[in-house]
């Protein structure tokens, strides 16, 4: 009992540690990949090939002076970045990242890899990530600056528009899996068709996966949907007036949200920790999970440095007139199929 408790604490600590590191690693990955795509080296001076660059970035941000505009709302200006980063961390709590394991016989009963198994896990992740937008909106409002306010307004409008498509895409997977628990969704994807095609929902839900990814990019405010910051129009959008640590929390929240989005996509569509049988048998399925999350994150960065930003009216048109109807049709077709094959 004691040992089990300690192991569970260690798993929670490990998840937290990985998330913090994910944001640092993603800063480096983003700059390196951007450099590669623009035919240059990217950061190169700090450490071998510039791998220690995030450390330098963090130190620089910590040393900066914290500024607060005179007309800003004191409380909300401080609360906003904290809210952002809290929601980002909390959302990952419901995401399982590995099969149940006894740690090679260390424990009598298997323990699950992940912070908490919740029987409505999919919805919990969705609920908490949707709370993250308050950080951005409040930052925009409390700064008492036109550009920030515009950024905050855009964030809330974008969130409402794309959340619908996102949730509808999720619902189709839930129909297939017949469960709201992320762990059960993942375990529904074990095994193969014809002996070699893994039974991942992405093959049953290609349209749903695409909608999920597009809406996911919009939800995390990444290019080509990075309207809340839109540097050519809004200086830096909602975080224009922020500096030092308060500023640093916003990109950190964004990177953690990206990680959560990718981890949920892996659980829902890409079979989670399934797919490489011999690693799963060894109890190292979480390495497979990590690789898949990494691949999606790479695609995230790839998209950012490939596509230009939409226009704001195009964002709304696309969200309401194309993405949402597509998601609804996908849901209806999936429901009909599930009904037909189960009957």
């Amino acid at each position, binding site marked *: 009992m004691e040992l089990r408790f300690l192991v569970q604490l260690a798993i929670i600590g490990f998840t937290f540690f990985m998330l913090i590191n994910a944001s640092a690693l993603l800063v480096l990955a983003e700059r390196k990949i951007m450099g590669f795509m623009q035919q240059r080296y990217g950061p190169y001076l700090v450490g071998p090939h510039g791998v220690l660059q995030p450390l330098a970035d963090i130190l620089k941000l910590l040393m900066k002076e914290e500024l607060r505009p005179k007309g800003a709302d004191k409380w909300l200006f401080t609360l906003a970045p904290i809210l952002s980063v809290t929601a980002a961390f909390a959302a990952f709590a419901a995401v399982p990242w590995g099969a149940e394991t006894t740690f090679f016989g260390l424990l009598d009963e298997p323990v699950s890899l992940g912070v908490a198994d919740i029987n409505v896990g999919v919805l919990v992740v969705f609920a908490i990530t949707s709370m993250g*937008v*308050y950080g951005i*909106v409040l930052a925009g409002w409390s700064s008492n600056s036109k550009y920030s306010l515009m950024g905050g307004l855009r964030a809330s409008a974008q969130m*409402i528009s794309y959340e619908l498509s996102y949730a509808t895409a999720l619902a189709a997977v839930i129909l297939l899996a017949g469960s*709201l628990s992320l762990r059960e969704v993942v375990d529904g994807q074990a095994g193969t068709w014809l002996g070699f095609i893994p039974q991942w929902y992405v093959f049953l839900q290609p349209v749903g996966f695409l909608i999920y990814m597009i809406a996911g990019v919009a939800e995390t405010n990444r290019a080509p949907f990075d309207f809340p910051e839109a540097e050519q129009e809004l200086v830096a959008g909602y975080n224009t007036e922020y500096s030092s640590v308060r500023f640093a929390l916003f990109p950190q929240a964004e990177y953690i949200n990206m990680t959560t989005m990718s981890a949920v996509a892996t659980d829902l569509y890409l079979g989670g920790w399934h797919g490489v049988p011999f690693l799963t048998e060894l109890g190292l399925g979480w390495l497979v999970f990590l690789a898949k999350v990494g691949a999606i994150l790479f695609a995230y960065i790839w998209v950012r440095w490939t596509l230009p930003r939409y226009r704001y009216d195009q964002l709304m048109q696309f969200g309401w007139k194309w993405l949402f109807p597509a998601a609804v049709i996908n849901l209806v077709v999936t429901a009909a199929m599930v009904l037909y094959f189960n009957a």
Partner: protein
Amino acid sequence: MPETLIFWGLSGMAILASALVIGQRNPMYSVLMLIASFGALAGLYIQLDAPFVAVAQIIIYAGAIMVLFLFVVMLLNAPQEDAAEWDRTHPLRRTGITRFGGLLALLLVVELAWALLQVNNVDVPVGAQGDPEALGSVRELGRILFTDYVFAFEATSILILVAMVGAVLLARREGDG
């Protein structure tokens, strides 16, 4: 014991936050307090073995509707409420529409009191009797919603649709096609 403590903590938070919603002069803070109140309510639902209702509460109210509220407050950029006109008039001398609001509030209080007195007579939904697990489960909730309570469910849907169409119609400017 810890359950009782959590219950009182959450209820206290919900009541305090709700009181602050009306107490705040700044509409932005009112909205935030309402969100906090919804969060506390969601916690209470979890204590009642209804995780789905709790999460739905967060997604729909705290996540979607309040973002819209915030959006409107920001768009209007409403300044602090002007206290001069409101607080100096005697409650009985205010305009008719305010009195009507008061009447409605009174009606709501009576209604709530009546509803609370009926609590012990309420029937537990069919199929979930004596089984809190089934009562809270999404499957059972969906089944009941689309069988026993399907009329109420559909009527609510139509009501919301009508309200939405009405809002769009009212907001449309003349000659907008």
